[in-house]
């Protein structure tokens, strides 16, 4: 089993990547059907590592209900679909999680003129959420802990869900906090009428997921993620990667495949990390592309900064 997936992907010539059907900032097709987003770029990174060509990905849009069966049955090779890594998913679902690529928590989007400023104001509110999400559980805990009541309105279809909030059926929309700015920016008529409640009320580490039992494939995914962290840490970005190739720093040389045979160990070409940074970018490049101040879904990096800056991103050494 080990090695099956990589061999199959190579034979197929493209990576099958399960993504969210429409989560602005993370994954969404534009009106021309071209996918873009933070998680989409991680899929591209995987393709770049394997084929040296970031475009060799096929995106499979998955509803929250379909995402786990799709990865389990092999319909997709890797899941980059706002999956919160949890113990039960790791075990009972037969998954393995990459290092988290995005740290967030449960967030609430509310209407400004309702005068809600904190979670405590939501007592008795109707709250829209997706079924079977970790958010659904977190909300139950957040409200129970404060002795408050709410009416869940649970809708699977993401369009219908957002529609229910926007039309006023719900007082609040709850999702991963990182997903809400996208909703506000794209789906509301006037984004200024809606605010995100401050504060983070739960842990939602989003990670890529693969099937259990294929260690080689799991290793590759894991190190693709670390490569983006380490590249940022070493100051190797899309803009300067070619110059950095000439760097004498052995760590940079190892990363970019100038020396060593990390690629061979992973079962891909030795310039795999170079290809990632060159074609997709390091973590910061990817983040800024989709959540930077100029993007429609601007998001502070919060904990999503390197450990060296007090954040949670910590790439293991690539020796």
């Amino acid at each position, binding site marked *: 089993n080990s090695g099956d997936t990589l061999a199959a992907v190579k034979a197929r010539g493209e990576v099958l990547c399960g993504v969210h059907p429409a989560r602005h900032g993370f994954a969404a097709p534009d009106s021309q059907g071209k996918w873009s987003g933070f998680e989409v770029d991680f899929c591209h990174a995987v393709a770049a590592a394997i084929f040296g060509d970031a475009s060799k990905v096929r995106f499979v849009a998955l509803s929250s209900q379909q995402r786990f*069966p799709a990865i389990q049955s092999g319909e997709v090779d890797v899941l980059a679909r706002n999956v919160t890594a949890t113990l039960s998913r790791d075990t009972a679902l037969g998954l393995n999680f990459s290092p988290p690529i995005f740290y967030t928590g449960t967030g609430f989007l509310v209407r400004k003129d309702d005068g809600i400023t904190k979670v405590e104001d939501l007592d008795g509110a109707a709250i829209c959420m997706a079924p079977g999400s970790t958010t659904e559980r977190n909300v139950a805990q957040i409200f129970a802990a404060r002795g408050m009541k709410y009416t869940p309105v649970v809708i699977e279809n993401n369009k219908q869900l957002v*529609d229910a909030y*926007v039309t006023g059926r719900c007082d609040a929309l709850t999702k991963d906090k990182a997903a809400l700015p996208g909703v506000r920016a794209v789906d509301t008529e006037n984004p200024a009428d809606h605010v995100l409640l401050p504060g983070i009320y739960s842990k939602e580490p989003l990670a890529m997921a693969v099937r259990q039992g294929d260690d080689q494939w799991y290793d590759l995914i894991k190190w693709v993620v670390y490569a983006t962290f380490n590249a940022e840490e070493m100051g190797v970005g899309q803009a300067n990667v070619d110059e950095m190739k000439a760097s004498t720093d052995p760590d940079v040389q190892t990363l970019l495949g100038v020396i060593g045979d990390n690629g061979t160990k992973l079962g891909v070409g030795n310039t795999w990390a170079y290809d990632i940074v060159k074609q997709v970018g390091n973590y910061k490049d990817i983040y800024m592309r989709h959540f930077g101040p100029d993007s429609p879904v601007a998001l502070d990096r919060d904990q999503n900064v390197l450990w060296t800056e007090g954040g949670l991103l910590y790439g293991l050494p690539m020796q």
Partner: protein
Amino acid sequence: MSAADWLKRNLFSSVWQTLLTLVTAAVLLRFFWFVLDWGVINAVWVTSDPDVCRAATGACWAVIVEKHRPMLFGLYPYDEHWRLVLMMVIYLVTVVVSLMPRNWNLRFLVPLWLVAAVSIGVLMFGGVLGLRYVPTSEWGGLPLTMLLFTGTVLFGMPVAVLLALGRRAPLPVARGVSVVFIEALRGVPLITILFVAVNVFPLFLPAGVQVDKLLRITIGIAIFFACYQAEVIRGGLQAIPRGQYEAAASLSLTYWQTTSRIILPQALRICLPAITNHIIAAMKNTSFVIIIGLFDILTATTAVMQDPLWRKFYVEAYLFVAAVYLFFGYALSLYARKVEKWIASGRI
């Protein structure tokens, strides 16, 4: 009968009837006036500015003009929409041609459908002749509805016939298998079958074997359709007098010869109206794929109605989709009525 007679008999035959007529006519006129006022007089037909629509008191048909492409074609790559238009033309021509009785011979129909299927496949998938490859996960809109529907009927009808024959077969095992299969599937909602097709079916396959999701869903709907249709066909089979079997036996025809030449042609003619009803139902049922996120015309429309600027005009958009279904459903039932007439007059 003179017009006055007719009016008297059908509308004003008694005081009570007259009253009823007047009240209904009043309500009806009011309704028509509203439709006219809202749907025609004050309607906005073409504009790309939603504010123009908002200012109007009537319908905003402009939303359909403005959004027709994502509504009709879903996620399919924008620059490749011409392929879908071409596909629909080929599809409709093929269907219309094959519905005409004078074309009913296999030597013409089989090649026709093969050619149509190949060219539709080439257009939809691409990847050859310099066409860009488009995986099934990006297919959508009306073409997807058409493909689901056609797949359902083409795959479902033979299965239905087999199940119906199985249920009437002289072999108890065949009967038992068919009965359990038919009744179990008819007892559950279509949604659960779609769930199985999407979420569970892959687990039934050996490791490494993959079946395209669209194909799985089509098969799911088709089998569901087949179970209902099998019951209809069974009704037709039961209506065939025993004498027909005996006459066939005395001509020494075999079971399959009897079935295919004598019994089925008659049974299918007998239950044609019910068969048509279920075929129309199959067309409506394709809309269930919204639940599993396939981008048929209905899903595509709900997605388009997500646009905050145009969201307000959902009534117009859904009326449009309803009209599409009504159009095809009505065309099918008109055609079926015509076929019944042909059968009655011995033309076919």
